[in-house]
């Protein structure tokens, strides 16, 4: 996960606490999305960024999982097309793993 994003998520968690905080991912690929979910849950597995050894315990959801929670028209205009392009099920399965 991008080091800049790791720093931002860490700062936001410090500022707002982790109780009401979720991370929404937009990754195009299962492995990378899973890596991001793992990073915000248990720490950066690559030990490269600010979340190395930091277990924030945050839950990450891919945007595809939140389809029914957002305005249908906006969803369609923004990422509707990508449902046809990406492997939606594989991405969701991978991201889910890190919420268990």
């Amino acid at each position, binding site marked *: 996960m991008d080091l800049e994003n790791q720093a931002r998520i860490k700062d936001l968690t410090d500022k707002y606490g982790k109780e009401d905080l979720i991370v929404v991912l937009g990754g195009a*690929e299962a492995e990378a999305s899973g890596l991001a979910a793992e990073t915000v849950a248990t720490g950066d597995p690559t030990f490269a960024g600010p979340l190395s050894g930091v277990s924030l315990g945050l839950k990450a959801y891919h945007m595809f999982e939140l389809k029914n929670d957002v305005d249908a028209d906006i969803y369609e205009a923004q990422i509707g097309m*990508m449902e*046809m392009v990406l492997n939606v099920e594989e991405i969701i399965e991978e991201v889910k793993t890190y919420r268990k």
Partner: protein
Amino acid sequence: MNYPVVKGAGYALIQANGMLIHHGTTQTSERRKNAEESEHLQKLPKHLRSFEDAVKYPPNQAYIGNITPDDLKNISRPWYENQIDDASRDGKYGEIMPEDEFLGLMKIVDIFDLVVLEEKFQAGVKAKLADHPILAGINKFDNMDKNSSTFDEIQKMVEGHLAVPLYFEGKLVGAVKKAHEFDEALSAHVMFENLVSKASAAYALKLLLAKTGLNTEEVDYIIECSEEACGDMNQRGGGNFAKAIGEICGCINATGSDTRSFCAGPAHAFVEAAALVQSGIYKNVVVLAGGCTAKLGMNSKEHVKKGMPALEDMLGAFAIHIAENDGVNPVIRTDAVGRHRIGSGASPQAVITAIVTDPLDGIGYKITDVGRYSPEMQNPEITEPAGAGDVPQANYKMIAALAVKRGEIARDDMAKAVASFGMPGFAPTQGHIPSGVPFIGHGRDMILAGKIDRAMIIGKGSLFLGRLTNLFDGVSFLIEKNSGTVDAGFDKEIVRQMIGEAMSDFAKTFNAQ
């Protein structure tokens, strides 16, 4: 209308293992953080491949034109295990160069005595370059007789931070000195990057001139579109790479300038070149760019972890000739230029609409009317292990998905559409290098051979990396089969005749009444 044509293409690759290890930013960042304990830096040298393996690597052979992207599709992956055994460094559109020769070329293009090579190494490389069919007569070749140094002197400069080191096969063989006592824009690091960019672009231009027969004196304008900046502390990106490169290649009648837009820079440059030629301001414009050392080994951590060769060992460069309509070569449809506008929006759908379908709609074409699309042609063997997926394939799927949304194809036919207008990526991950341009040589040939009627070249750029805007960038243009007729323009005699005939007809009608 007289559209400009794509008259020729030259492509160059340089294998640069020493630069990968010592100047790629993944490695320099690692060295800054934990030089002593870095497992990556310890393991990386074992993953470097030989020059012979780089030459035999199928994507590199596609880049210099010895095999087509369609041939590459038929070679099983991993490509690094299915090499082309009888491959040559010399290609239809260009060449692959080893690092020692390139260090010599850097010295040749260096006007300010900043590149210092160890004396024996310099003599050896001079002999090799003197036999080079294209570079032997290059301007400033006599630099290879000047200013050599001893190993100890070079080591002292590097240790004293007066120069950055140059390595070949693990040995220190030279250095690039800083060009000013304290100006960071002229530091040894910046001068090294800029001289690499200049030397590799000059190499591509020399290849274009040699492979296509374009005369040096015929070049009117050069647009350089790499991602480096040259200048000093008072104008950090002052320029001008283009004229510096043209000077080395003997383009005495050319002027030029630099165009930047991250990886979309080349696509912008082609639109500018096409406009300059169609307007008649210049007859022959060359769009070119050299390679980028910072991106060497960018994903090498993942490649090492997965037991692969460090495939990002290639500097890429290109030079493409845009000329007046000759009735033969494929035209650039200047009435179908795609662009991501500031207000276009950032969703994938908005981006593909702006870049792909808006220009096609303007001239009444459908997505499937385009024989091939050339978006970001990154080699998937490099990007997939790093979690970035198959970039060209993702672009093709997006274009096909948009075709489904527009009702141009059925959803079940998406894969078929992708297979028909898509190609495997074969370019090194050098930012501006893979961005659409690698297919121009192949596309030109396919159109000339009647295999396709048109191709769309797409450049995309991540402007947000510069931290001045969150905007994305994208530009596209269409190259198309030449109709074969050259519009001779306004002919006074024909107009006079037409007016005469009209007046005569009018008089007849008048008389009849």
